[in-house]
């Protein structure tokens, strides 16, 4: 899922300072799981803003709403009429959600409430780590389920390099050497021969932005946009 962190309070407060009536829109999927922008966090931000502005004797009317996913038109469309009453919107979704919301509700200024960090996993409540760079070319079958593009601090496709120090990376001794881990994984699954395969250059052209994917079943419908 997409991991995000809430922006510093002072930054959000400065963004909404010129307005009298704002809407905070949460997203109930990824950012809710990583405790950055779900319904609860919308409530916390609204409460924090009310407290802070109340201390300065300023009035700010705050609307709160959380949709299932801000990256999905199905959930965003019903929001449009609702947002019309507000002067500005703070979206607590990832970067994709913020952009999609603004695409639909383009009359008011929109501000991001979180910084989108990466695609990662939920190790435990409150502890998230990166796993995928969304490079559009997956090697995981060859590398024992450890992504060299993401997990190797150097992003090497063939390893380990000479910079492995007891399972850690010379770039940062705090970080694991992905290729050392890949070696041990492959050893465990009995397919160490895979590490001998020399991977060709990474097709960076496949991850030029902005990317587009059209499902094969929908080629006829959307093919014209290709």
């Amino acid at each position, binding site marked *: 899922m997409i991991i995000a962190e809430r922006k*510093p*309070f*002072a930054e959000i407060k400065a963004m909404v300072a010129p307005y009298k009536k704002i809407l905070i829109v949460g997203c109930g999927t990824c950012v809710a799981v990583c405790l950055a922008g779900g319904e*609860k966090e919308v*409530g*916390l931000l609204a*409460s*924090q*803003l*009310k*407290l*802070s502005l*109340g*201390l300065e004797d300023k009035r700010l009317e705050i609307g709160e709403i959380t949709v299932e996913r801000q990256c999905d038109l199905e959930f965003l469309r019903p929001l449009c009429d609702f947002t019309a009453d507000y002067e500005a919107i703070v979206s607590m979704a990832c970067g994709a959600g913020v952009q999609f919301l603004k695409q639909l509700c383009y009359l008011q200024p929109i501000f991001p409430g979180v910084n989108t960090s990466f695609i990662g996993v939920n190790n435990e409540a409150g502890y998230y780590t990166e796993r995928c760079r969304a490079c559009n070319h997956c090697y995981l079958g060859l590398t024992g389920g450890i992504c060299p593009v993401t997990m190797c601090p150097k992003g090497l496709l063939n390893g380990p390099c000479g910079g492995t120090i007891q399972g850690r990376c010379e770039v940062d001794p705090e970080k694991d050497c992905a290729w050392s881990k890949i070696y041990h994984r492959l050893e465990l699954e009995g397919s160490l021969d895979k590490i001998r395969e020399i991977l060709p250059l990474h097709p960076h052209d496949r991850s030029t932005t902005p990317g587009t994917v059209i499902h094969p079943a929908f080629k006829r419908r959307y093919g014209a946009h290709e």
Partner: protein
Amino acid sequence: MEFQPKILALVCTYCTYTAADMAGSARMQYPAGVRIVKYLCTGRIDLIHILKAFEAGADAVMVSGCEAGSCHFLEGNLRARERVEYAQILLEEAGLGGRLEMFEVAASDAPKWVAAVQEMTQRVEALGPSPLRRGRHLHAGVVEQLENMVQS
């Protein structure tokens, strides 16, 4: 009019509530400005409960649970402590630092409850009334609202 701090105490039924009850039975004297909301465990206390209390005009909030290692639900009090520490950061950012504290009071330790209330009251007296209160008393509906939130 003399300033009388209004403090909301979010407490665990197994330990602090029992201690507070005992303090009452034993006729121990302590500042009367504390309102108690009983939770089944401090682990149930949400950040928003604390922030809403301040929105409603509480001068301070104290969270009080079991001593470390003696939670009826094993680690509810430890979770509460993590949340209280985070809530302290959120309040600090909003400009209300120093008005939230976590205590640990065992069921048998009524004097410690009395001391905790006294300590919190003194602290609030030094800080002055919450600027959000503006002469209002703690909103009557808040305690009831919190109780409903807990039960839901």
